[in-house]
């Protein structure tokens, strides 16, 4: 028995699905549940869960893939940095395929730029230590899951006295975009499967405002198929009962108050800022910027590269897809001009993007 097989038991899944079907049969109209985490999106597809749920429940993917919501201008900025002499760009793998206005990091790498895929921001610090004559820039993209390790990397670089390490920061936070989506009168999200990794840092309590102010049920949910089905069942139960509260399905890892040490790291190095989300626009206090005390490690300030404002590719519907207004196959570019090998929009770029998941797993 593998470690996760307890969370993949077909008999338990069948029981959960029966319960969900019974409750869904009482709905006056179909309900829309949104997962706000790229890993949830992939897990839902990987286990074929959409096809198992009753027709009255529609699962849509929200802005939970950090690569997908990163604006094109940021990619252009990273591309400008990679062209500076004696510079090494370090990044998580997903970012290298994201098209900027003209080119991508993958293309620049093929043309000779020094771009390295790392598995942790600390690997980038180590690279800086071993390459004192080069500037090592880490692309700080991701939610509260990854931001604490980037904060740790900045502190480690400071302690080591490294003057050749910096971060191009585009970190974003939850649950601000979920609140923005809930405030949009054009959208109808009946419940959120709240992100698991992010919630382990910020805690389940972070979604309380969503449930009280917007009256939308929230369930912090794990990634195994039974986690997701139980999360759906808990949301459906709330909807049937006319309740809107935060529930924590993933209590084996997520605490109500989150991870205080990681939160302290975030607060020490970063401060909230307004941030632009690809597809969603500007959302107040939804980003993290490096505090003045650590500005030495801020690549944007250190190198001062400026790029022209970028426009979304013509015909791309990623913005509506990220809001759950459209499904991937509603986009005319899907599977035609826009594929994982030739991505046009953000949702197709990352392996965790909505369109990439649909392309990979959908029929």
């Amino acid at each position: 028995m593998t470690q996760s097989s307890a969370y993949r038991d077909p008999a338990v899944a069948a029981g959960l699905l029966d319960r969900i079907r019974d409750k869904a049969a009482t709905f006056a109209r179909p309900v829309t549940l949104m997962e706000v985490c790229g890993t949830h999106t992939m897990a839902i597809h990987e286990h074929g869960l959409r096809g198992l749920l009753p027709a009255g429940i529609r699962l849509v993917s929200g802005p939970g893939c950090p690569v997908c919501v990163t604006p094109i201008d940021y990619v252009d900025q990273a591309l400008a940095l990679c062209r500076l002499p004696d510079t090494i760009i370090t990044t998580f793998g997903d970012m290298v395929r994201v098209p900027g206005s003209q080119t991508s990091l993958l293309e620049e790498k093929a043309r000779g730029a020094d771009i390295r895929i790392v598995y942790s921001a600390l690997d980038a610090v180590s690279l800086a230590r071993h390459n004192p004559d080069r500037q090592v820039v880490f692309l700080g993209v991701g939610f509260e899951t990854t931001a604490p390790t980037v904060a740790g990397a900045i502190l480690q670089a400071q302690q080591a006295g490294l003057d050749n390490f910096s971060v191009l920061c585009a970190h974003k936070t939850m649950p601000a975009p979920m609140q923005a989506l809930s405030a949009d009168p054009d959208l109808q999200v009946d419940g959120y499967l709240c992100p698991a990794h992010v919630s382990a840092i910020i805690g389940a309590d972070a979604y309380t405002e969503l449930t009280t102010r917007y009256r939308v049920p929230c369930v912090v949910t794990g990634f195994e198929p039974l986690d997701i089905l139980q999360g759906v069942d808990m949301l459906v139960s709330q909807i049937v009962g006319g309740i809107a509260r935060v529930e924590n399905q993933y209590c084996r890892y997520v605490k109500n108050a989150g991870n205080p040490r990681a939160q302290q790291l975030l607060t020490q190095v970063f401060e909230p800022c307004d941030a632009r989300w690809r597809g969603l626009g500007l959302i107040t206090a939804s980003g993290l910027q490096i505090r003045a005390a650590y500005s030495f490690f801020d690549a944007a300030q250190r190198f001062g590269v400026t790029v022209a404002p970028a426009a979304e590719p013509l015909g791309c519907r990623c913005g509506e897809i990220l809001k759950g207004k459209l499904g991937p196959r509603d986009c005319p570019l899907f599977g035609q001009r826009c594929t994982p090998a030739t991505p046009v929009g953000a949702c197709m770029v990352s392996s965790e993007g909505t369109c990439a998941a649909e392309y990979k797993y959908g029929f």
Partner: protein
Amino acid sequence: MPDDIILLGHGSGGKLSHQLLDELIIPMLSEVETKDQNDAALLTHAGQRLAFTTDSYVVDPIFFPGGTIGDLAVYGTVNDLAMVGAQPLAISVGLILEEGLPKDDLQRVLESMKQAAASAGVRIVTGDTKVVPRGKADKIFINTSGIGVFAHDFNLTGNNARPGDKVLINGSIGDHGMAILASREGLALETDISSDSAPLNGLVEALLTHIGAAVHVLRDPTRGGVATTLKEIALQSGVDIVLDETAQPVHHNVRSACAILGLDPLFVANEGKMLAVVAADQAEAALQIMRSHPRGLEAAIIGEVSAASTGRVAMRTALGGLRAIDMLAGEQLPRIC
């Protein structure tokens, strides 16, 4: 995606590799059609059927748990011959060495090649050595070509899968690719994953001796992994293939490492595995033959060829859901969170 330069993804064994072959390399050099692409070329000369293949090895690191670039090169070429049903006869070795390579490393690689050739029962009969300036290669690149002969007239090529056939694999999926990834600098995975690099000609011979005509397709799922290889077979044969998720043999440590990095074992490279598409009434016999051979102890029936003919590959999940399996689009890249 730029179309004027070569990207790493063009060597991934997935869609970009196929695109490069179909649009540029094959039209320039050969008349073979996509549906006829196999692991080795089939030749006939003076009434004798021959198989001929070549492959290049550029793996980093050159030493890894379970093997070296040397035995990988020998086994890879032996396996390409075995997958069309040929008995490997002789291979050539082309060495491209980077200036500064320690002679001890070269000797270790050559010793592993010698042992690999002995264990596969193949002779290394000719070769070539070049040295390039430091930085113009990565330690050592190896090209091997091989020639094989046939003791039978079975057709095992990728266009031979038929509705109702069962799909078998001779053991666990993804070991080689994850062993390489885990041993690369900067990835501190505390695992004991070992490459599955091994010769498969003995196992093929055992299958063909006992149930020859029932074996319809053989293919080793190297770059691009099991998913890409099955997709190739489905397209070549014009059939659909449905896999059973619960039947996929994946070692726990490989599954865990893949989960951490956001990779799918089905797309990870193997170097000692083969997929066999076998007539349904002989599938159980094939399974027993595999399991009684040292290279097939963990063999499993992982899926079947369905009656549909759209070239699709699907996975029936443990919970009863269905998802599509496509070719690897580019390089598999670790996810961000």
